[in-house]
């Protein structure tokens, strides 16, 4: 039995550069930046005061059943808008032959944001200064007055999934994985495996996330993972540049409709691209550091190539994880050289995080969509802000301007905190 080919038939984006695929893509090709001062909360005294936020967005403009989603968190609202776009692009809104039991979902979405104000108020009220600990009864007395059920329940990380299932009546295999910054790449890979095995006809896959809230920014600031370039937010995300000082937080969602080629053809769907390969590994190295030789990253790329049955010479473009942290960019460069050897320098590789910020769990899905568009338009999105390359980063990063190129096969990398590595190979169908 041959493995069925899995194709992409729909895509949707809600990002800091816009709420539809074409606007975002045009922005990426013109080096637009979605980064600005944080206004979700008062971050004016934080070590980092800026991020890439989604602006002027209302999921109710996208969904058919808004009454099912009242009170959702930002993460779920992004997921709904992006998935609804993908659903329409795939022509599923007008197709009535779908077997709902064979419509699955595999997301790599993040948790919802804490109800920060009420949470902090409860914690402070519950503080027992003498014992230097929380008095459960005092904590409960405040929390039970202030917190609300919907707000709390919507924080569970399976909520974007649950809402998409309701919106699209999806009753097939349903998963959410949360492998930090690799999550949605992993989700697309695992959704592909479910289709290959014949356990569903169509999968909704991708990710949605925001960590632009006080404790999210606090957490990354304490890790010193964020750029502190507060006087130049739009210049702050500078992957592969010698003066890079960390990543910039983003938020949003990328969603795809994927299905077996056979199913897509039978219903006359337009095929946008094929998911040809998937690789996944763990560094198993350290909690805080990436393996210095990029062991897991290189292995992940090799596994994806092997899965796709494609040689090194077929790769036309690499969508980098490219966060803009000191560690990631040099080690990712090293890993690409380990895999591609002498050819590494002649493969263009860019990081759209330089414009969109880092959408954490959702980043990989957005980058996979950029790969599909690169194939469609034969154009490569640039790495913005790359004026002074790091000597350790000596590949072709498509610096500062989009480029026309022959693009048939793309490799997209995502690496997560904790040593999670995932790679997809996307090719012209």
């Amino acid at each position, binding site marked *: 039995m041959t493995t069925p080919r899995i194709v992409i038939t729909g895509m949707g984006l809600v990002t800091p550069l816009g709420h539809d695929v074409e606007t975002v893509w045009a922005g990426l090709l013109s080096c637009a930046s979605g980064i600005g001062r944080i206004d979700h*909360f*008062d*971050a004016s*005294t934080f*070590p980092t005061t800026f991020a890439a936020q989604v602006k002027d967005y209302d999921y109710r403009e996208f969904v058919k059943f808004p009454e099912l989603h009242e009170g959702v968190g930002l993460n779920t609202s992004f997921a709904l808008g992006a998935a609804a776009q993908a659903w329409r692009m795939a022509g599923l809104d007008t197709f009535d032959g779908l077997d709902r*039991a064979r419509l699955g979902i595999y997301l790599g979405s993040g948790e919802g944001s804490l109800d920060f*104000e009420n949470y*902090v*108020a409860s*914690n*402070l009220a519950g503080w027992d*200064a003498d014992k230097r*600990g*929380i008095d*459960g009864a*005092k*904590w*409960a007395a405040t*929390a039970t007055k202030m*917190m609300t*059920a919907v707000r*709390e*329940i919507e924080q*569970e*990380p*399976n909520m974007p*999934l*649950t809402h998409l*299932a*309701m919106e699209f009546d999806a*009753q*097939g*295999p*349903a*998963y*959410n*994985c*949360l*492998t930090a910054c690799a999550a949605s790449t992993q989700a697309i890979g*695992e959704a592909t495996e479910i289709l290959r095995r014949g356990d569903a006809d169509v999968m909704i896959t991708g990710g949605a996330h925001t960590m632009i809230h006080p404790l999210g920014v*606090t*957490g*990354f*600031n*304490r*890790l010193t993972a964020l750029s502190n370039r507060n006087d130049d937010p739009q210049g702050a995300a500078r992957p592969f540049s010698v003066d890079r000082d960390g990543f910039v937080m983003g938020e949003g969602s990328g969603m795809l409709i994927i299905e077996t080629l056979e199913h897509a053809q039978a219903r006359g769907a337009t095929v946008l691209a094929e998911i040809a390969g998937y690789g*996944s*590994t*763990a*560094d*198993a190295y*350290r*909690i*805080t550091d990436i393996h210095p030789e990029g062991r897991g990253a290189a*292995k992940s790329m090799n*596994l994806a190539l092997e899965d796709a049955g494609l040689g090194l010479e077929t790769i036309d473009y690499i969508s980098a994880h490219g966060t803009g942290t000191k560690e990631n960019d040099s080690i990712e460069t090293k890993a690409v050289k380990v895999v591609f050897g002498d050819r590494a320098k002649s493969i263009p590789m860019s990081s759209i995080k330089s414009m969109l910020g880092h959408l954490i769990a959702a980043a990989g899905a957005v980058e996979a969509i950029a790969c599909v568009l690169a194939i469609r338009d034969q154009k490569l999105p640039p790495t913005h802000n790359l004026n002074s390359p790091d000597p350790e980063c000596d590949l072709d990063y498509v610096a500062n301007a989009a480029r026309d190129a022959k693009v048939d096969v793309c490799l997209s990398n995502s690496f*997560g*905190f*904790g*040593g999670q590595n995932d790679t997809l190979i996307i090719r012209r169908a």
Partner: protein
Amino acid sequence: MTRSVVISGVGPVSGLGLGMDPTWEGVCAGRSAVGRIQAFDPSGFDCQLGVEVEPYKIGQYVPKSHRKATKVMARDIELAVIAADFAARDAGLKTKGTDPDAGKNGDFKPTYDQARVGCHIGAGLIAADLTELTGALIEARKDDGGFDIHKWGNEGMQHLTPLWLLKYLPNMLACHVTIIHDTQGPSNTITCGEASAILSIGESLRVIQRGKADLCFCGGAETKMNPMVYYRQQLTGRLTTTSNDDPAGAVRPFDQSAAGMVAGDGGGIVTLEAAETYEARGGENAYAQVVGFGASQSVNREAKNSEPDPQGLAVVSSVTAALREAGIGADQIDLVVGFGCGVPSWDRAEAAGYKVVFGDRLAEVPVVSLRSLVGNCGAGGGGLDVAVAAKALREQKVPAVANRDTPIDGLGPSAPAKDAELRYALVFNMGFGGQSTAMILKAMDR
């Protein structure tokens, strides 16, 4: 030809104890571990009951090389690490985690090549330790006692340890386990509430079947013994509030008098191995074979998915898919280890699904729910369920059915543990959100 997969080791961790021995003794005795919450003063909550894992020293479960990293382990992570340690030792695996000499000599050889070992662990929404976080938040109080976010940004946050965030990322359960046991193959963290652990074990099954790994650590762990998590449970309206003075009888799965659930603490990790590599390494005492797996989603728009569809359609479809893969009919299932959280609407939907699958035979099939004994361990519960079902097949013994004097919808009543001929066991879990998953285990030929 699909590769055959076995469960070679089990590591259950719950209020019944650490490892399979106390767990098995507890589930056979029908001993409830439910009690008044000790982790915090629960007097301000409607439900004051919980289930807590006994005190432990995490240092005992990690190799010396990883001791420092225990400082960045939330309790959920600790529970997963302990469960993985039990599973690896139970399976007789030599890893960097189980062999004290691993770090000392250069020619250490683990049982499996690291690249062929995977890790799939289900996790919940990990809550911050309130004492640690609030100890920093109070440094940013205004004169009137309120919170000053400017002060927090300027200085307050400096009171949090730099690695604070890493304690709370859900993938850190798998991350620590991959480092401790040096597993460098495919790894994932599934976060679908109570369905997480079985979905994770199912993903390990698929990874081994398609030849991407030979051994996987899989399952889940979660604690709900934190005021924030506990209160979130209360807000769902699913906790029992009428049994604070009767802990042992509080959770009554599939009983007409069921009044809700109790939140727990724990989970389970099992080791899955390709049968061929298990045998090649001399293994001859596997617990069971994993022969079927299915996943589905319940859609109940009327209840906005806060309850499953009352017909149990998702139960039927996931169980049917698992049966199909196993190549058996429902009449061949000898034991069900179900979800049975004790929340009436959830129990009834689950029972309705079983009724469709088993028909009139349902009353004769033992349907065990561990929630009556160990509470709802969230993302961890399925790991515990699979471990217990595997043990039941090995021992040829049905665990006790507890707290079911007036069963609903054609299920059998409470019963003591009993010896029985068991060939196939079905394990089923459902996450709050509607993710449903079923797994079928087959006894080893002996």
